[in-house]
C-alpha cells in the first residue's frame, strides 16, 4: 500500500519538475500537448497528441459537459409530447433522459481520469525528450516508435482491445449498477417517459425494513440464508461425491473404467437448459415420477408418515418449500458430481505413487490412506478452486431458475409482495426483479450485496492463490 502512495507521489514530483525545468516547448505542452514534440522535431507525434487533445476537448464540450452538468440531478425536464395540429404530428420536447445522463456521466468521468493520466505522462515524456536532446542522445523517429509497437512494446498492441472489452463490459456495468442502487429507478420512474433521481441510501434501508408496505427485509433474510445453505451444500456434496466417485472408478479392481467415466460424462455434455428443464417436468406434480410413486404406494406411505400433506395426492417435489429445497440439492448432485469426478480423476492420477506405497508398507489401511494422503493432497491442489466454486454456487442461476421458474409458486404473502420465493437465490431474485418487475433500484441493491459477498470470498481465495510458493509445503 505504502509503495503505491510513494509511486503516485513520484509521478506528481516528476510532473512538477517537468513543468518547472522544461524549456518553452515543454511549458507550451501544458496547453497544446503536441508542442513538446515540435521542440525536438517530431512533427507526426506532435500532430497525433494534439489531435487526441482536440478530440477530448470536443467530446467534453459537445457531450461530456452537458451530461456531466446534469449528473447531480439526473435531469429535470420531464418528457412531454404535444399534438401539433398544424403538422398533425406529436411533438416531443427536449426532455432529459435520466439513464443516459447516468451512463454518459460515468463514461465521461472515466474518460477524464484517463485523459489526465495521458496528460501527465505526456508532460513527463516531453521533458525526458528535451533532456535527451540536450545530452545528444538519439531520439526515436515516429516510424521507429510505430515499429516498437510490434516489438518491445508489443504488449500494448495486443492488450489494448481485450482490456477495452473488459472495461466496457465488466467495469463500466459494475459502476453503473452500484450507481443505480442509489437512485429510484423502477417501474414508476422509467425513462424516457419519466425521470429518476438520486435518493441516497433509501434503497439500502428498504432492503432491511419489514413493514406493512415494504417486505424486503423479511424476504432478504430468508433468501440470503437459503443462498448460503445452498452454496454450502451444493459445493460440498458435489466435491466429496466427485472424489468418491473418482476413487471408485479409478480403483484397479474396476473393469472398463473408461466406459463408466463416459457414461457419467454424457449427462454433463447435455446443455443444462435441456437437462434441467427436462428434470423439472420429470418431477412435476403431475409428472411421471409422481405417477410411478403413487402406483407403487410411495405417495401413500409418505402421506402416512407425514412428509406429504394429507389429501394432496402427489409428492410436491418442486412445488413446496421443504421438498423443493431438498430436491434442488439432490438434482444438483446429479449435475455437479460428474464434473468433480473429472477434475478429481486428473488430480488423483498425479498423487506421487511412492507416498501410497510407503504407507501401505507401513501397514496403513485404505481408509487411513484416504484420510491422511489422498484428502490432504486433493484439498491442497483443489483448495482455491473450492472457494471459486462456492462463489459460483452463490451465483448458480441456472440450476435454481430452470428448475423452479413457472413451477414453484410461493404461498407466503410477505415473500410474494417483494416478488421473492423460498427457493430464490440472491441472483435469481435479482433477475426476476429486473425482468418481471422492472424494479431496477432494488435489483441493483441486491447486486451490490452479492458483489460484497463475492468480494470477501474472492479476496480469501486470491490471497491463497497468490500466497507465494506453497508448492513445497505438501512434500
Amino acid at each position, binding site marked *: 500500500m505504502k509503495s503505491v502512495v510513494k509511486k503516485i507521489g513520484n509521478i506528481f514530483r516528476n510532473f512538477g519538475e517537468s513543468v518547472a525545468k522544461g524549456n518553452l516547448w515543454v511549458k507550451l505542452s501544458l496547453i497544446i500537448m503536441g508542442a513538446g514534440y515540435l521542440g525536438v522535431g517530431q512533427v507526426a507525434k506532435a500532430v497525433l497528441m494534439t489531435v487526441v487533445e482536440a478530440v477530448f476537448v470536443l467530446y467534453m464540450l459537445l457531450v461530456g459537459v452537458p451530461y456531466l452538468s446534469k449528473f447531480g440531478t439526473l435531469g429535470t425536464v420531464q418528457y412531454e409530447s404535444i399534438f401539433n395540429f398544424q403538422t398533425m404530428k406529436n411533438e416531443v420536447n427536449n426532455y432529459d433522459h435520466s*439513464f*443516459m445522463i447516468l451512463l454518459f456521466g460515468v463514461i465521461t468521468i472515466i474518460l477524464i481520469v484517463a485523459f489526465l493520466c495521458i496528460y501527465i505522462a505526456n508532460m513527463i515524456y516531453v521533458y525526458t525528450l528535451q533532456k535527451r536532446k540536450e545530452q545528444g542522445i538519439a531520439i526515436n523517429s515516429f516510424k521507429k516508435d510505430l*515499429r516498437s509497437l510490434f*516489438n518491445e*512494446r*508489443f*504488449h500494448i498492441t*495486443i*492488450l489494448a*482491445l481485450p482490456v477495452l472489452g*473488459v472495461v*466496457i*463490459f*465488466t467495469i463500466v*456495468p459494475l459502476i*453503473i*449498477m452500484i450507481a*443505480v442502487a442509489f437512485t429510484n429507478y423502477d417501474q414508476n420512474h422509467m425513462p424516457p417517459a419519466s425521470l429518476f433521481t438520486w435518493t441516497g441510501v433509501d434503497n439500502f434501508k428498504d432492503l432491511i425494513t419489514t413493514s406493512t408496505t415494504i417486505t424486503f427485509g423479511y424476504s432478504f433474510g430468508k433468501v440470503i440464508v437459503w443462498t448460503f445453505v445452498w452454496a454450502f451444500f451444493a459445493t460440498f456434496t458435489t466435491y466429496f461425491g466427485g472424489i468418491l466417485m473418482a476413487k*471408485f*472408478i479409478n480403483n484397479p479392481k*474396476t*473393469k472398463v473404467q473408461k466406459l*463408466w467415466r463416459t*457414461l457419467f*460424462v*454424457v*449427462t454433463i455434455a*447435455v*446443455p*443444462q*437448459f*435441456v*437437462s434441467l*428443464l*427436462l428434470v423439472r417436468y420429470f418431477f412435476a406434480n*403431475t*409428472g*411421471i415420477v409422481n405417477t410411478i410413486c403413487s402406483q407403487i404406494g410411495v405417495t401413500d406411505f409418505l402421506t402416512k408418515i407425514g412428509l406429504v400433506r394429507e389429501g394432496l395426492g402427489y409428492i410436491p417435489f418442486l412445488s413446496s418449500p421443504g421438498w423443493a429445497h431438498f430436491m434442488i440439492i439432490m438434482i444438483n448432485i446429479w449435475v455437479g458430481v460428474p464434473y468433480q469426478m*473429472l*477434475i478429481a*480423476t486428473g*488430480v488423483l492420477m498425479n498423487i506421487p505413487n511412492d507416498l501410497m506405497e510407503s504407507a501401505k508398507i507401513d501397514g496403513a489401511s485404505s481408509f487411513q490412506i484416504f484420510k491422511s494422503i489422498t484428502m490432504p493432497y486433493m484439498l491442497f*491442489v*483443489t483448495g482455491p*478452486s473450492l472457494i471459486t466454486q462456492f462463489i459460483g454456487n452463490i*451465483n448458480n*442461476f441456472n440450476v435454481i*431458475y430452470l428448475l423452479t421458474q*413457472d413451477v414453484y409458486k410461493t404461498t407466503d404473502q410477505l415473500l410474494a409482495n417483494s416478488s421473492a420465493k423460498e427457493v430464490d437465490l440472491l441472483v435469481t431474485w435479482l*433477475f426476476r426483479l429486473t*425482468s418481471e418487475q422492472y424494479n431496477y433500484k432494488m435489483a*441493483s441493491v441486491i*447486486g451490490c450485496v*452479492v458483489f460484497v459477498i*463475492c468480494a470477501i470470498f*474472492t*479476496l480469501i*481465495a486470491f490471497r491463497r*492463490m497468490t*500466497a507465494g510458493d506453497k508448492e513445497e509445503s505438501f512434500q
Partner: protein
Amino acid sequence: MMKKVVKPVIRHLVLALLAVIWLIPIVWLLATSFSSYQGINISHFFPEKFTFNNYLMLFGAADTVAQFPRWFMNTFLIAIFTCIISTCFVLMVAYATSCMRFKARKPLMNVGIILGMFPGVLSMIAVYFVLKSIGLTNSHFGMVLVYSAGSGLGYLIAKGFFDTIPVSLREAAKLEGASEATIFTKIVIPLSGPIIVYTVISSFLSPWMDFVYAKLILNSGISTDWTVAIGLYNMLDRSLINTYFSRFCAGGVLVSIPISALFVIMQKFYVEGVTGGSVKG
C-alpha cells in the same frame, strides 16, 4: 474363494446402479423425442408408439413458435464470431502475460484474477442497460459483444501452456532479429495447437450453453431472433407445452449431439485447466 467373486460383482453392480440413475433423464429425453404423443406422457415412461415425426416437424414445419433451423443458424453464427474474437483475445493476453515482461504485468494479472472471479450473472442488468442505451438489445451483434468482450479474463489456462514453451526458442529467434510480433505469430502460435483447440471449443460452446444473457437481451418476443436455448425454453410455456413437449425433446437431442462431441474432445483439457491454474497462481 467366494469372497473373490462376490466383491467385484457388488462393486460393478453399485456402479451400474449409479449409471442408471444418472442416465434415466437422458433416456427419457431420447424416448420422448420419438414419441407420437406431443405433450408430456405422464402415465408411461416409454412412449406407446414411436415415430420420427417430431424431428421432421422441427425442420419441415416451422411455425411462429418453432423455428428450429433458424435458431440453429442464429446460435451457430453467434458462436462462430464469439469463438473468433474470444480465441484472439485469450491468446493475445496469454502471450503478453507469459512471454513479455513489462511494468504493469503483475498488477494487471492481479486485477484480472479478481475481476475474473466475479460471476457474469452479477453485472447482467448493467450490461443490459449499456446495450440498451447503444441500441444493441435484440441484436446478434450485441450478443457476440457480450460473450466475447470479457473473454480476455479467461487467459490463465493458455498462459500456463505458453509458460511451458522453452524460453530458448524465443531467445534464439530474437537473436536472429525476429520482433515480438513475429515470435508470437510464427513460433508460439504454431506450437500451441492443443490450447488453441481448447480455447476454440470452449468459446464456441458458451453461446450454446448460455441461457441467462440470451433471455435478457433477446427479449422482443420475435421468434426468428432467438437462439436455440430461448426457443426451446419458450416451447415449454404453459399454453404450448401440451403440443410442443416432444418437439422440445427432439430439439434437445439435436443440440446435444454436436455439443457432446465437442465436449468430449475438450474434457481432457478441462481437467488440466482447473488444476493447473491453481498451482501456478
